[in-house]
């Protein structure tokens, strides 16, 4: 057997082979990378803002009511100054509110101030510091004291449950967090939350339902029955048919028929009766 003789030329000892591309860079497409990290950042910011919103709503009821009063004192004084001279209606509403408040067993130091505004707007709302605003437009729709008591009871219940301060602090802290985290972008949040402090508050469906129940209990306590109380809702429903000028109240209190049904269920469960004499308005 003859072995082939091969002349081995040893490879050069010093060489620089070509290094492949894409080892230390070029792993992710830049746009994919940006998409990934922005998704995480957006989720983080949303969690922070949402977290501060719900934390504020949770903690707000523990703030003393006197802070709310101090906060709204100036605003209240200005509003009162611009109100029409203390009308007979205003005095009546305040007296009725005081009776209902007594029946609802408010915590110490919590005061209710009713403001009657001679304005066609069909609306009423409760806000910070125990202030309740009732517009003439809504007042004209109510034809019995029971309906008015239901309305006032509903708004007083909001104040008792600290709903205004919860909404306000939730919105305020979320805005502050957005401002702190996003800087200039916080302007966006400011635009969205502007003016929500002392004007109309938006309460959750659960808050509205609770206010309805508390108000009904107070009305039953005062008059012994719920007859006329739901007139508030039916009056609003009738007014809602007015497509030219639907009541502003409905904007913040949707799902009226649902609420009437819920109230009737609760009335049956609590043994409240709908039979009784309506108390006329003075």
């Amino acid at each position: 057997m003859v072995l082939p003789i091969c002349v081995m030329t040893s490879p050069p000892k010093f060489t620089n082979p070509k290094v492949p591309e894409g080892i230390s860079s070029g792993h992710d497409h830049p746009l994919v990378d940006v998409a990934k990290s922005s998704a995480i950042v957006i989720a983080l910011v949303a969690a922070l803002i949402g977290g501060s919103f719900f934390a504020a709503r949770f903690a707000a009821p523990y703030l003393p009511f006197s802070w709310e009063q101090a906060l709204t004192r100036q605003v209240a004084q200005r509003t009162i100054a611009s109100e029409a001279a203390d009308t007979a209606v205003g005095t009546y509403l305040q007296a009725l509110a005081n009776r209902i408040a007594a029946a609802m067993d408010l915590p110490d130091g919590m005061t209710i101030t009713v403001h009657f505004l001679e304005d066609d707007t069909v609306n009423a709302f409760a806000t910070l510091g125990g202030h309740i605003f009732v517009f003439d437009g809504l007042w004209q729709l109510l034809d019995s004291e029971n309906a008015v008591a239901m309305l006032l009871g509903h708004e007083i219940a909001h104040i008792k449950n600290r709903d205004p301060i919860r909404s306000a602090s939730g919105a305020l802290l979320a805005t502050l967090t957005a401002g702190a985290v996003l800087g200039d972008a916080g302007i966006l949040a400011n635009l969205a939350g502007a003016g929500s402090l002392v004007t109309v508050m938006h309460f959750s469906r659960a808050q509205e339902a609770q206010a309805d129940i508390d108000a009904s209990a107070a009305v039953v306590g005062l008059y012994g029955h719920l007859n006329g109380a739901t007139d508030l809702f039916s009056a609003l429903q009738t007014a809602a048919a007015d497509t030219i000028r639907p009541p502003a109240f409905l904007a913040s209190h949707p799902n009226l028929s649902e609420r009437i049904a819920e109230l009737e269920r609760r009335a049956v469960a609590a043994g409240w009766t709908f039979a009784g004499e309506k108390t006329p308005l003075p």
Partner: protein
Amino acid sequence: MIVSNMEELPGQRVVRHLGVVQGSTVQAKNVFRDIGASLKNLIGGELRAYTDLMNSAREEAIARMKQEAEALGANAILNVRFATSTITQGAAELLAYGTAVIVEESPE
């Protein structure tokens, strides 16, 4: 793959030099580590989170350097060095480089 910052390996002989290989990575720390670190800055001590971060980044750089060396058919990297550079606040580049070689058992 032998990685060493020596010029020679005991009992081994360099039969081929294949040139400079390198691996690098740019690493960012995240805001949560920042918060922890700024707290630690008050009392001093080791910033464990940053140490871990830099170590894992350095390992990544070494892994990439090895990848280059493997692609050249090397079985060792000699005279390995590290360099670190900050690019912005909170981001650092880790570089590892050395010479890719082929070594074999030396009879001596």
